[in-house]
């Protein structure tokens, strides 16, 4: 099975504001950039930049509804990042178990 490169996802999620945007979109799909800016202590312009970065990482998509642009989370790329977390976590559990037995 091909594993998607988690690099862009980690980069996208390294920023706390982008994590907030992801959290908001997860709970309320279809928010506009203005609605997101109302919820967060950053400008609409900054939100637009964060949304562009999330789209580049494949984590969000825009839907045009009339004059509005609504954003939705596309969480599929998170799978690669989660897979890394799970695999690396399991390796550390094994290593720390070995260390305990050695002491």
């Amino acid at each position, binding site marked *: 099975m091909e594993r998607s490169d988690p690099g862009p996802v*980690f980069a996208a*999620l*390294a920023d706390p504001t982008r*994590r907030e945007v992801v959290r908001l979109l997860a709970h309320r799909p279809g928010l506009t950039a203005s609605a997101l800016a109302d919820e967060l202590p950053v400008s609409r312009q900054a939100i637009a930049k964060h949304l562009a970065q999330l789209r580049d990482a494949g984590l969000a998509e825009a839907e045009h509804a009339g004059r509005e642009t609504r954003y939705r989370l596309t969480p599929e790329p998170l799978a690669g*990042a989660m897979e890394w977390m799970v695999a690396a*976590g399991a390796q550390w559990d094994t290593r720390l178990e070995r260390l*305990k037995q050695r*002491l």
Partner: protein
Amino acid sequence: MELHEEMGALRRETILDAPRDAVWQLVAEPGGLAEWLADDVDLPAVEPGAEGTVLEDGELRRVTIEEVEDGRRVALSWCAPGGEPSLVELTLDDAEDGRTRMVVVEVPIVALRAVAERTVHASAAAGRTRGPQMAVAA
């Protein structure tokens, strides 16, 4: 779906039944690391800039020691073939009853770099010049 604040950083904390200097022996020497970190550790020394490899489950990772704080902390970067390079930090603290708390943090370097860029921007905005706290191998 639940995203955590520490998304992108893996963290493990464990209490080891030995004093800190005994644990440090197994962290600050290549031979000590070889007893638990991987099946084989090929490093000239555990000191900043030292480069080598670790072999684990048949997979050879390139490893570089980034920082050493005597008796307390070792930071290294490593990368599995075709994998995402990451930074690992092993920190020891005294725990109760002569035991030792070990905290492991592993972060993909791409995530760390995004944070470092933000720190640099913030410092520049404040009229200061300050590099990222931790040297990260490119």
